[in-house]
């Protein structure tokens, strides 16, 4: 049971880190790439809001992912 839990923690933590990395990259891409803004249907006034949202989500996801991966490490 513990081994399965550790494996799930590692997997979910890894996915969260990846999602966080993706969101952090989107902070820049929303600012710099018009095609991304078009995909998100974001007007120029909404760009800072999107950037803020992706910043918060990215930071939280990376931290949460690290906490889970660390659980896996500290338990082993």
């Amino acid at each position, binding site marked *: 049971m513990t081994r399965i839990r550790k494996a799930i923690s590692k997997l979910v933590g890894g996915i969260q880190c990846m999602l966080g990395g993706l969101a952090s990259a989107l902070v820049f891409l929303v600012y710099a790439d018009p095609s991304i803004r078009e995909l998100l249907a974001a007007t120029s006034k909404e760009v800072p809001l999107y950037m803020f949202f992706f910043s918060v*989500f990215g930071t939280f996801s990376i931290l949460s992912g690290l906490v889970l991966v660390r659980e896996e490490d500290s338990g082993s």
Partner: protein
Amino acid sequence: MGEKRLKRELGLLHAVMMGIGGAICAGVFVTLGYAATLAGTSLIVAMILCGIINFFTMLSYAELGASIPSAGGEYTFAKASFGGFLSFATGWFEWISNMFYAAFSSVGFAYLISYIIPAVNVPLIAVVTVAVFTLINIKGVKETGLTQTVLVIVLLMLLGVFIFWGFLSGQNVGMFELSAPTGFLGVLRASAFIFVVYLGGEAIAVAQAEIKNPGKTIPRAVLLSCMALIFLYTMMAFVVFKIVPAEALAGQSSPLAYVAEKFMGPIGAGVITIGGVIAALTSVNTSIMAHSRVAYALSRDGYFPRSFFNLHKRFNTPFIAILAGSVFTAAFAATGIVNFVTYATDFGFIIGFIFVNLSLIKLRRDNPNLHRPFKVPLYPLTPILGVVTSLLLIFFLEPSTLLIGVELFVFGLVVYYIRMVGYNRICLAVGGMNLGVGAFSALLAYLMISNNLLMPLSQNSTSLFSSFALFVSITYLIAGLLNITRK
């Protein structure tokens, strides 16, 4: 305690070269064009103005470096004066900024190489560059200092050729006159834009635990490198406007190479390109040394893993701190999205400037009897001017720079509290937030699928975003459960 084990092997020449090499980056070779469109020939005034702003803060570096010559630079100063989270935040920004700066410089170097040999793989060259300088840094501080000294001397010789040839050249655009097409505001905007060319000189403070006779050497090295940079940049700007009018620089990808070609022929463009290559290498070298010393100091005080404090038995360098930071640096360099992270570099360096000046003021008040081999003249006016001018620079930064800075700050805040607060309480808090994000994503997915979302989305976008929201929801709900059920 620990840095007694770091050897003091850097003399005045090494330290001065560390300061000059840390500041002259590839940016110097490309930023002049846009700055000239903002300030015209008054770019010379902007260069001097930036040098003076930099000088205010460098005086603070000189006093604090001579009084507290321990590893860690700004972090050590902030720790001695403020302690707690403020000192950690200073070290955190310093650590991250230097890693980003190393990544940016290595990619800059790789791009310059790709101009000469177009077939090369840019990310690969950048990663190899980081690896080579990581090895040099592990090998020993003496080797790092020697490499830096040789590279900076060659760089100064190349820039010297550019300046003297330019002065002696009969080619000129006529009588030199200071002009500013958009007035003094344009000069100020140009100053904020080109200030980056002075950043990095504080590398001397980071390496101060390895500088011989710090009470005398650190102030001399800081002030000499600062004056040398003002002289060098002003002379370069003067030669540029002697040869071509300011308008001719607009849109040039490498304005210095363009000007050099005008009066030196193709050899001039070559000289400047080689100069750019060397400038990028010196920046990589300095920033790898800087981030490792900050991580070493943060580890000494319990903020970073203890292993970062270990010194190599043979080479006496913090090899784990060097390796760990270099892995991050290489990863950033390999992604090719370095522009994204370079925004954070400026923010981190300017935060460091503000805290150094504040630390000086607080230490003067709290600890007036501290042995100070060098004292900032005109105290408290000088450090206050340092704080004010650094704050002004923040207002001129791009909005995305500020956002990334805030994100890094929040990230640092959480890392600090994870170290300071009980880990189980952190897990519970993160678990609760995960459940919240999971429930919100599930609601978002439902609203999208049922067409009740107020935002207009196309059919393709709706299915894409709703699937993604569902995936995020499941992931975060599982993460939340794992966190709150942790034993």
